[in-house]
């Protein structure tokens, strides 16, 4: 930072800007911020979609949000400014670098020993190897040692126990060999093992990093504060955490509510999609309850706070999700299940080998060396790579097909799914309203022109849907006079001296708009949320895969019945978020493996609670965060495709385990017979790893 004359207090502030996705966005945000006085520096982090701003006292968080809004991005200050975003990859990078560096150098020295270096040269090389290897093993082995110790303390064992034991014993024996000037040192093998395994872990962690916890995004959806109407009639800004029940907030058009409350004056339409997943706005008036996180669409209203902070419906959903996520983390990954069988088998084998050689008359030293060779040769190098490599290759293939994988273990979970629950709005359907094509075609050119002109005056979702559909048909807008939008009623105007209107029909059961042109009959135009293009085929494919499907929606009985008929599925309507979660839990309790497909915040708890979950790319932030898979295209065929790819992946994982076992069947007898040298161990280890990687690469076409 430049030293500046005078006292300028510098502050930093981190804002989340979820809409950034390319270089253009980055430069727009950074330059948009730097244009303003008071902003000293701005640096975008595209990976975490955050911008760090250094500014002085003359600007605050609200100004920064406004500056970013001016260049077309929605921004929110991060709640916990001090907290760094969690990364699973970062702590593994340094151990991987150290292990790789040491492995390469020690291998170089080992090659000369294998090629016949003898006497003092061999001793020198062994000592240099020890000098490099011991600190490197101590540092790079930590992730394994810590995890193994944690498992042993709880009386269980995992893959890290045989790894840690193998590495530590190999290092200790090699040091002893070096000390006495022996022929064999195993430093190279131990380091190579650590390098391979850490590479597997880093691949795994990279996938997990993309799956960030949904809770932070959820809380940032609530407004940061509200304008509160004081007893003296003056407005003052109160932060969300300081809102108290009984206060009256004035919520402007386009603002999100910061707390739950009852409307005391005014009426407006509210976008509750964040909470219910239903895109259709709800009209609320005096006495109705409005929820935190909903968006005020039409007119300013006054709301008396009933629940604030941790008591709001939004915060309640956040808690439900958190609980579900913890519940799911108890899932035992297939590699750890394999380790539970593998580790005891290997250890007793090594022990029996030592005992066997002692009985056969070998010295204690000879028997120990052979026992260690067994431990090293069975050290699960290929096993450590078997799962992550397969999952990384498969997720790359799915990524190219427009499906993003957020968690590697999701492959394991979705492969065994036999029951699917699908949300309606935004999942089975496109999630945006489309006017009925037949009703539109029935309009005369004049009527269509009037409708387009009226619709273009309103930002109401239904008007915008009308505008989009009519513009797409090439309709020319009629010229109107006295156009006026009345919140909750419609758009009104005058055309050639006649009163015209595009309004909400009285007492219509379905979503529709009524067009009155003052001449001819009134036109009722139904507006529906269309089914995704190949929803039926996708569901048929899922059922062919042995997965029973049904609809689970928070929408009204009527709206759901229509979609259920089109999609030919059983349905359950009017389900609240906690009921969705309960239903998932109940199905899981009866032994089913449940796949949840949904997009809204209301699906969040169910997405987190299900064995596996998929969300469309148009989903709310919470839906995206809670789901294991996200598909970006309009077609629902992503569902059967994901299941198919996951099942193939699990097949390959099992083959990889098979390969590792076959390798052991050849290598272990050699080790028990005492025929394994460090050279053979190094070759066997890399050969089996390469084999596993090559087998996994077959998954590159898994998403076809």
């Amino acid at each position: 930072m430049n030293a500046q004359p005078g006292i300028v207090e510098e502050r930093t502030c981190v804002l989340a800007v979820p809409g950034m996705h390319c270089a253009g966005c980055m430069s727009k945000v950074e330059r948009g911020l730097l244009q303003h006085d008071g902003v000293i520096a701005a640096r975008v982090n595209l990976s975490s979609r955050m911008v760090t701003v250094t500014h002085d006292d003359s600007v605050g968080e609200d100004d920064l949000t406004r500056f970013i809004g001016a260049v077309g991005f929605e921004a929110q200050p991060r709640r916990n400014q001090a907290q760094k975003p969690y990364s699973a990859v970062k702590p593994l990078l340094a151990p991987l670098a150290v292990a790789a560096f040491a492995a390469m150098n020690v291998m170089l020295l080992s090659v000369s020993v294998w090629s016949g270096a003898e006497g003092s040269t061999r001793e020198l090389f062994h000592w240099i190897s020890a000098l490099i290897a011991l600190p490197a093993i101590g540092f790079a082995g930590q992730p394994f040692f810590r995890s193994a110790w944690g498992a042993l303390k709880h009386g269980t064992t995992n893959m890290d126990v045989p790894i840690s034991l193998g590495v530590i014993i190999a290092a200790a024996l090699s040091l002893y060999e070096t000390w006495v000037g022996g022929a064999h040192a195993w430093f190279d093998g131990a380091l190579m093992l650590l390098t391979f395994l850490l590479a597997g872990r880093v691949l795994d962690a990279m996938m997990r990093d993309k799956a960030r916890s949904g809770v932070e995004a959820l809380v940032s959806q609530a407004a940061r504060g509200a304008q509160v109407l004081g007893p003296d009639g003056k407005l003052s800004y109160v932060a969300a955490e300081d809102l108290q029940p009984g206060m009256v907030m004035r919520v402007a058009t386009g603002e999100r509510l910061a707390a739950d409350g009852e409307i005391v004056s005014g009426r407006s339409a509210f976008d509750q999609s964040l909470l219910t997943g239903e895109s259709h706005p709800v009209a609320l008036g005096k006495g109705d309850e409005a929820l935190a996180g909903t968006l005020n669409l039409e007119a300013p209203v006054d709301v008396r706070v009933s629940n604030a902070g941790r008591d709001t419906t939004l915060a309640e959903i956040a808690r439900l999700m958190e609980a579900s996520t913890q519940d799911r983390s108890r899932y035992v990954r297939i590699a750890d299940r394999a380790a539970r069988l593998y580790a005891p088998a290997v250890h007793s084998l090594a022990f029996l080998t030592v005992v066997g050689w002692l009985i056969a008359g070998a010295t204690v030293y000879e028997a120990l060396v052979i026992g260690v060779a067994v431990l090293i040769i069975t050290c699960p190098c290929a096993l450590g790579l078997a799962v992550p490599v397969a999952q990384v290759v498969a997720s790359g293939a799915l990524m190219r097909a427009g499906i993003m994988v957020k968690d590697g273990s999701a492959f394991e979970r979705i492969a065994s799914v036999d029951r699917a629950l699908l949300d309606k709005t935004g999942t089975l359907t496109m999630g945006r309203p489309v006017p009925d094509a037949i009703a539109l075609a029935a309009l005369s050119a004049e009527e269509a022109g009037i409708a387009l002109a009226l619709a273009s005056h309103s930002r109401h979702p239904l008007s915008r849907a009308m505008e989009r559909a009519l513009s797409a048909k090439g309709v020319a807008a009629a010229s109107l006079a006295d156009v006026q939008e009345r919140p909750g009623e419609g758009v009104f105007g005058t055309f050639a001296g006649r009163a015209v209107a595009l309004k909400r029909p009285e007492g219509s059961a379905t979503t529709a708009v009524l067009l009155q042109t003052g001449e001819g009959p009134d036109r009722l135009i139904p507006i529906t949320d269309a089914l995704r293009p190949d929803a039926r085929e996708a569901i048929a494919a899922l059922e062919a895969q042995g997965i029973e499907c049904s609809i689970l929606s928070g929408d009204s009985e009527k709206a759901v019945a229509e979609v259920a008929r089109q999609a030919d599925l059983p349905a359950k309507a009017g389900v609240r978020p906690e009921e969705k979660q309960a239903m998932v839990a109940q199905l899981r309790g009866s032994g089913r493996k449940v796949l949840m497909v949904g997009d809204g915040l209301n699906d969040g708890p169910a997405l987190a609670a299900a064995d596996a979950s998929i969300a469309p790319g148009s989903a709310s932030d919470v839906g995206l965060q809670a789901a294991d898979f996200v598909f970006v295209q309009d077609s629902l065929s992503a569902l059967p495709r994901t299941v198919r790819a996951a099942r193939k992946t699990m097949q390959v994982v099992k083959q990889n385990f098979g390969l590792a076992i076959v390798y052991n069947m050849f290598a272990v007898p050699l080790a028990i017979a005492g025929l394994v040298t460090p050279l053979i161990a190094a070759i066997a280890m890399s050969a089996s790893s390469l084999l596993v990687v090559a087998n996994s690469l077959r998954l590159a076409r898994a998403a076809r």
Partner: protein
Amino acid sequence: MNGVLFLLPIALLLGALGLAAFFWALRNNQFDDPDGAAARILIDDEDEPKDEDA
């Protein structure tokens, strides 16, 4: 044999330098934003106004 006595320390030193450089990069947050680093090279330096239909 005498050559090795020179070459070994040199090789180790060069390797260690690489490792030190990596640690320096890690500590200076060079790996915080891999996506951003890849995209940043596409940002134009000059401040001419551009059309905004991206």
